[in-house]
Structures are given as C-alpha cells and as structure tokens.
C-alpha cells in the first residue's frame, strides 16, 4: 500500500489538464506513442471536440522512482459546475491533487472551488504552473496567486509545459514524494466508494471504485449500501489503457467491477460497496442523491419519432444516471419528455448526444428551474414546468431557488459583471481582490436567471476573463408570473414560461418580436400575443403572405418546380400546428435566443 499514490487533477478548461494527463501516460509508458491519441482520457467524441471532460474516468500507471516501483492511479474529474458533485466524489477517492494553472491566465473560479474541495478532503495539493513556454506566461504573478491561495512556498510550484513535455518527471517525482500513501486496513470489512460508472453495451455497467478498507476478491458477494442491492463480483480489475482483470483489489487501490448491472440508476456515485457476509459499519461520507436543477421538455421534431426518442433516452440514461425524465404531452408539440438536467451544459450535452449518437433531431422547450408554489393551505407544490403551475387564485405565493455565485474576473470588468448580475436580479455579497488585478465577486442570484444565457453573457462582457462557480443556497419568495404566448388567440403551451413580474413585459415583448422574425408568413395574418392570465402585455403581427408564385412554368421548369414545392412541403411537415398557424421548430427555441 505504501507504493500506491491516488491523485486527481484540478484545472480550468483549457489550462491543459488533458494534455498533461497524456504526457503522464506517455512518460510512464502506460501508452505507447502509437496508441496515443490527443487527449486520450476524453474518449467521447463530444468531449474531445469541446475540449472538456464530461464524465470522469480513471487510469493506472506504473512508475519507478529511485529503483522502487510505484502504482499511480490518476482519477480524472469533470471540469464544469454542472458536475460538481461528481468532482467531489473523485476528490474523495484521492490523497493528492495536481493543481494545474495556466501561467498566462491565472486561477479561475471553478479551479478555486475544486481546490477548496480538495483541501477540505485533506488532499496534498501540488501546484503546477503550466504553459510556461508561452510568450504570454506570467510565472511570477500567477505564482503569487497560488502562494496566496495555498500558503505554499514558491519552490513548491512546479514549472511545466505539458505540450512541450517540460517538467513531467518533476511532477511524477512530486507525486511520489509529496502525496501520502493511502491508509487503510486490508483485513477490515470491505469499505469502498463508487466514484464513477461507465456503460458498456456488451457487459453492462462498469463500476469504478476506490477501496478504503478491506479487500475485494473476484467472485465476492458485494452490496451497494445505499441502494441495498447485492451483486456478484464477476470481474474485478485495474484500469490500465485496457481493463486488466485481477483476483483482488486491496485497500488503498482503485479498480473496476463488472457484475452485469444493466441500469445506471442502480449505481450511484458516492455509494459504499461492502461485502454481504461481513459488511462494514462505516459508510463513506458525503453521499448525495444527485438532483436535477434545470428542467425542459424534449420533443422529436418529427412527431412519428416519439418511440425512437424514448428508446434513445433510455439508452442515454444507461450511462448517465443524472438524466431523469418522464413522458409529457404538449398541445403544440405532441408527445415528448420532461427532462431534468444537472445544468445547462448537461442539457446541451444530452441534446447533442441525442443528435450525434442516435440521429434524433429534437425540440427543446424553455428551460425551467424547480419553483415552489405555496398554496393558501400551506401545501408546497413543486413546479418545474409552466404547465404545472396551479391556478393563481389557489396560491399564496411562489418561491424560487437561489444560488451563491462566485465570479473571478479581471478588475477592469468588475463594473460590467456587477451590472449583469444586478440585471439578473442578483445582489452583490462580497468582493475580494485575489491579486492587484484579479477579483473574486460573490453574488446571490435566482437560479432561474443564470439558466438562460448568463454564462455566455458573462464571457462576452469580460472578453472571456471571467469564470463562474455556484451552489444552491435555498428558496426565496419571489413575485413570479406565468407568461403565455398566443398565436391567433390560441395558447402555445410549449412557449409559456415562469418569469419575474418585473421582467415579464420585457420578456413578452422580446419574445413576440423574435417570433415575428421566426414565423414564416402564411396565407393569413398572424397575431402574436404575450399574456399574463387574461391580460395581453405585448403584441406583434405577421402579415399575410402576399406572393408565392414562380413566374415561368414551361417544359423545362415543371420537374424542378415540383421538386421545389415538394421540398417546401416537407419543410412544412416538420412544423407544428397550433390552431391554423404553422410553427417552425426554431420558433420553439426562440426563448433561448433572446438577447
């Protein structure tokens, strides 16, 4: 056990985590250069394209230091606020962390919150200044930030360039020397923690775990404490580049378990694995049931593809237990699903995976958070879709979730960032200068306000020099109203939204304007109205189509023209009809594009 080191990497997007991981694998000869693909650990296409790690993974390396062989387990962590719980579990599985900071960028909010998590879990943090070779590198300044944060000495900071292979051996040596060996007793009852799972279409769910105490042997009867389910450890092993089956995995080590589990929901990140015969009395601390924060409807663009969408969603759920959904019906969109996501990125990822992996084109409706409608009799009704809002006359008030947001930015952008947060109904709570030109701002904000385009706006106003982290703080009473959109007097349920009353007029007006742009002219005039209850608060008109006729139709035109019209007809088939109005799919996404 004294020759095992478990560590993770904490880094902001683009600060070079994946490249560094690649170099470590190369240097320890875990992969040969030929096997090396860039960013090996991110093996979903989507991850590679976005340059971010969506799901965490793990890999084991062998490294000889001063003649002694060591086993290094690198546990990869996702780098987005949507997945902060998963990060906390990965961190809990380690004794050390590499803190990677881009020498030209400095520390970002996400990094800090993950760093705090690591410190909370008593991880030994090894700071690494990456991209030291870049012309824009400011090693002195960024080192100052790191020293401020960690209270370490300047000598503790390793200078590296993952891209150029500089400093890689220093990092490996530091892991051996500075990260403590795991503690634990291989003879105690089995106590292991699930930190991740991956769906394998041939073998079911692979469970990744870290053993704290005891030993797991092949063939053991094991129990997942939280779900109470028991399994046989059909195959256990360690995660090399390929899976390497083993007879046993002892305390301090990291491994995988395959036991024919078919449903991802049975495998909860953070759950404790123990033996059925000799169970541990100590559950691993920190387990949480992950709860979705953002809700939206997902509908097939082509209504006949509902069943196909259902089976795609089921398959997605197999390897993404955090995705929850139930069937939902919309008058405008037909049959679809109400889905819960960890955050907006998670929602985008699900949508993209549906498109790429399952070839489904979908309409996503207005994202919503979970509101609480407090009825006059005191009953709390959770509302995660406008359609679930009870009759206003039966409600005493509505509450909405609030978050505490940490934003780190350059001092020159403080003004615009504060203005943005205030516009989003936020209150500034704290302002701390990390260095002379980097500042950490804390806000309390309604979650609903950051669900839409907050992050994009933040990036724009700060020219990319702002990072965001947030956590849910609780519910607060708010003056919220349900805003409906009507086309020629018919309500379009899929366009309804719950918004703050002060913003309802502006929202209604802009949505009507956007819809006017997106609705094609039809054979009659279309009235677009926004309403709160029966009160119309905004109106736009799409004038009737005045011309759709080609001038010439002679011998050579007939075929071409017929094809053109058939194509137009196909296009119309993808539209939805409310009353007599045909609505293109983009119109349902209009809310996401309000600026």
């Amino acid at each position, binding site marked *: 056990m004294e020759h095992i080191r478990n560590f993770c990497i904490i880094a902001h997007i683009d600060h070079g985590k994946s490249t560094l991981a690649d170099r470590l694998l190369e240097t320890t000869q875990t992969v040969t250069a030929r096997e090396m693909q860039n960013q090996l650990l991110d093996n979903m296409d989507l991850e590679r394209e976005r340059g971010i790690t969506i799901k965490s993974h793990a890999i084991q390396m062998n490294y000889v230091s001063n003649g002694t062989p060591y086993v290094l387990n690198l546990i990869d962590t996702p780098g987005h606020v949507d997945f902060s719980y998963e990060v906390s579990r990965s961190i809990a599985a380690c004794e050390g962390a590499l803190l990677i900071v881009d020498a030209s960028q400095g520390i970002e909010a996400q990094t800090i919150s993950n760093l705090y998590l690591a410190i909370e879990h008593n991880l030994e943090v090894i700071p690494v200044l990456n991209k030291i070779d870049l012309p824009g590198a400011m090693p002195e300044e960024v080192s100052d930030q790191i020293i401020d944060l960690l209270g370490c000495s300047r000598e503790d900071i390793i200078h590296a360039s993952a891209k150029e292979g500089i400093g890689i051996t220093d990092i490996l040596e530091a892991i051996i020397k500075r990260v403590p060996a795991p503690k634990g007793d291989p003879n105690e009852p089995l106590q292991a923690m699930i930190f991740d799972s991956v769906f394998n279409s041939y073998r079911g769910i692979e469970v990744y775990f870290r053993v704290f105490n005891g030993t797991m042997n092949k063939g053991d009867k094991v129990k997942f404490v939280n779900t109470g389910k028991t399994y046989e450890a059909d195959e256990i092993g360690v995660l090399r580049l390929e899976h390497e089956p083993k007879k046993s995995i002892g305390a301090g080590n990291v491994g995988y378990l395959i036991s024919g589990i078919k449903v991802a929901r049975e495998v909860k990140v953070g759950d404790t694995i123990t033996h059925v015969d000799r169970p541990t009395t100590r559950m691993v601390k920190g387990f949480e049931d992950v709860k979705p924060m953002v809700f939206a409807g997902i509908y097939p663009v082509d209504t006949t593809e509902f069943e196909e969408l259902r089976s795609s969603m089921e398959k997605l759920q197999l390897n993404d237990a955090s995705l929850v959904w139930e069937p939902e019906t919309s008058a405008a969109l037909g049959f679809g699903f109400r889905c819960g996501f960890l955050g907006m990125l998670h929602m985008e990822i699900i949508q993209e995976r549906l498109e790429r992996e399952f070839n489904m084109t979908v309409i996503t409706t207005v994202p919503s958070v979970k509101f609480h409608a407090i009825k006059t009799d005191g009953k709390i009704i959770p509302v995660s879709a406008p359609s679930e809002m009870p009759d206003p006359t039966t409600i005493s008030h509505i509450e909405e979730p609030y978050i505490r947001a940490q934003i780190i930015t350059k001092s020159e952008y403080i003004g615009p960032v504060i203005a943005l947060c205030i516009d989003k109904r936020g209150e500034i709570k704290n302002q701390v200068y990390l260095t002379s030109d980097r500042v950490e701002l804390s806000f309390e904000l309604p979650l609903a306000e950051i669900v839409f385009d907050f992050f994009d706006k933040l990036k724009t106003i700060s020219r990319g020099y702002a990072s965001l982290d947030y956590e849910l703080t609780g519910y607060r009473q708010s003056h919220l109203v349900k805003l409906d959109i009507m086309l020629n007097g018919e309500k379009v349920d899929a366009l309804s939204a719950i918004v703050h009353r002060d913003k309802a007029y502006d929202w209604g007006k802009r949505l009507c304007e956007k819809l006017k742009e997106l609705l094609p*002219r039809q*054979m*009659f005039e279309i009235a677009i109205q926004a309403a709160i209850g029966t009160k119309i608060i905004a109106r736009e008109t799409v004038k009737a*189509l*005045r*011309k*759709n*006729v*080609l*001038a*010439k*139709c*002679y*011998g*050579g035109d*007939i*075929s071409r*023209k*017929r094809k053109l*019209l*058939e194509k*137009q*007809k196909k296009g*119309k088939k993808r539209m939805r009809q409310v009353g*007599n109005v045909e609505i293109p799919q983009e119109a349902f996404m209009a809310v996401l594009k309000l600026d």
Partner: protein
Amino acid sequence: MVQAICRELELRCHEIRTPLETIYFGGGTPSLLSGSQLEMIMHAITTHFQVVKQAEITLEANPEDCTNEKLAIFKQLGINRLSLGVQSFENSLLQFSNRAHSTHQAIKAIEAIQSVAFFTMTVDLMFGFPSLPMAQWEKTLDQFLIFDIPHVSVYGLTIEDRTVFGNWSRKNKMQRINDEDHALQFAKAHDILTHAGYRHYEISNYAKEGHESKHNASYWSGKAYLGVGPAAHSFDGGYIRRENVRNNARYTAAMEKNQPAYTEEHLSATQRMNEQVMTGLRTSKGIDAAALHFTFGKNLLLDHEPIIQWLAEQNFISLDGSKLCLTNKGMHLADEIALKLFYDD
C-alpha cells in the same frame, strides 16, 4: 451545333409518335441563327416527323434580329408565330437587365412584324424590378396596348441564386422589391389587360380569344414533347421526363457518336398527379378533381377537404362541381396553394 441538333432529331424521332402540332424555337436566341441554319433544322424536323397542317410554329426573337430580310426568311420557313423579348418599354430597365436592344428598336421590330400579315405575335413584359415604380409599369402596359398584339407573357422578376441578380442581391448591390409591391404590379397587369379584352389564361400569360399559345398549353396539360439541344427537356406524356446535358461540347460530342445525352427521371403516379395539380392550377381552366381521380385514383376533394373548404371560403379558389380554379387573389399564392394540395409520395 446545328448538325448535332439535326442528329438528335433523327435519333429521337421515335419518342413522338403522333404528328407534331406545335414547334417552338426557343431557349436562348434562335433568331441569331442564319436562314440556312434554320432551314437545316426545319428540314430535319419535316424529314423525321409528321407535322400537322395548321401547326403553330413559334420562334423566339430579339428585337434587334427582326430585320425585314430575317422576317422574310422566317416566313418562308413556315414560322407563323414570333415571340419577341421586349421586356420593357423603359430604356433604363433594358440596360439594367443587360438587353442589347433599346425601346426604339423594340417598337421598330413590332411594327416590322406586324407589317407581315402572316405572323401572329407575342411579347414578354417584365415587372418587379427594384427600380420600376408603379407609374412606369402602367406606362409600359399602356404602351403595349397601343400595338394591339394578341398575346403577352407577363413575368415578375425572380431573383434566383447563382445568377447575376442573385449575386447582386446577396451583396446588397440590388434591392429586392417587396412582396406587396410585387403583388400590386401583378394585379395592375391583370386589371389593365383584362379590361383591354385579354384573357388571363395562365398565371403569366394573357391572350385575345383564340390566340392562346398552343405550345405552352401542351406543357400544362401534360402532352408529350421532345426538346432537342443542350439542356432541353422532354416528356413522354406518361411518366418519363428527360433532360439533356447542359454542356455544349459534351452535347455535340454525344451526338457525333449517335448517343443520346439525357438523364431520365421516372415519375411516380403521385409525382405526376402533383405536377398536374401544380400546372393545372396555374391555368384559368384549373384542375378537374374528377379527372384526376379517374387517372390517379386519388380524390383531391375528399383527401384535402378541410383545406379546400378553407381556401374557397377565403376566396383563394373557386369551386364548381369537381373543378377547382384559382381566383385573382389565389393567383398570387399559386405555389403555396399547390403544395397544400400535394400528396406525399
């Protein structure tokens, strides 16, 4: 090229088995051909096809080509209908659309043609230019009426991608006329011309009684036609459409080897029905749902009942038994209406 065309006429003469009722020289500027070239083609036609006695033989001509000598040749070859690409009686618009002729030349050509009693005539007029105010369009129409020409095609300018206008429009060098103004000019032509005794017998065509183009009418009614020359289209009257290669060199090379140079499109019954709905709706005769039902086994009135009801209520179409015609209001939206009546394949 002329040789190649004559070769193609010979090669494909079996495609039309009935005597030719109409012959049309068009697509480009056939009036540029010399007398002997035209004669070669006419000779090939009469050698390989039967032609009915009163056949309508049309030639598209540019005003600048309508000299007395040329007209004499046209007459001698049996051409009895000239289609004159006038486009406009506004010099600025003629320049804008890169026409070689002037208003003056157009008028001279019209007068020259009319002095030969043998010919009947049609002209093209265009509206919908970004720089054509309504008053000018009216003036063009009035100018046209002075000559008492029995047939006129009236086209709205269509700006298509990958054309000079398309490029201009894309680069904002040219404004597009808005749909309202386009519709108003279309309606103005209808008012002025029908008032003057022309029948609006197809979306873009007006004629005095008995002067309708037989040739074009055969496209709309689904008769067989053979098109020869590069990029020419043919239809067998049933379910096959053919399109010749566009490239001149490839076309002549194929003809030299006695090989046809077309691609074929085989239509399904649904596609044929859709075509007939589309072309039929454009004509004043409209479409006969009973006849379509008989031919294709599909009952338009039943299958599209709600939309047909609505179109009739809104005065886009008029319904008379099984016959369905566009109203004046409906003509502006002919394509929109056609596609609502289309069947899925």
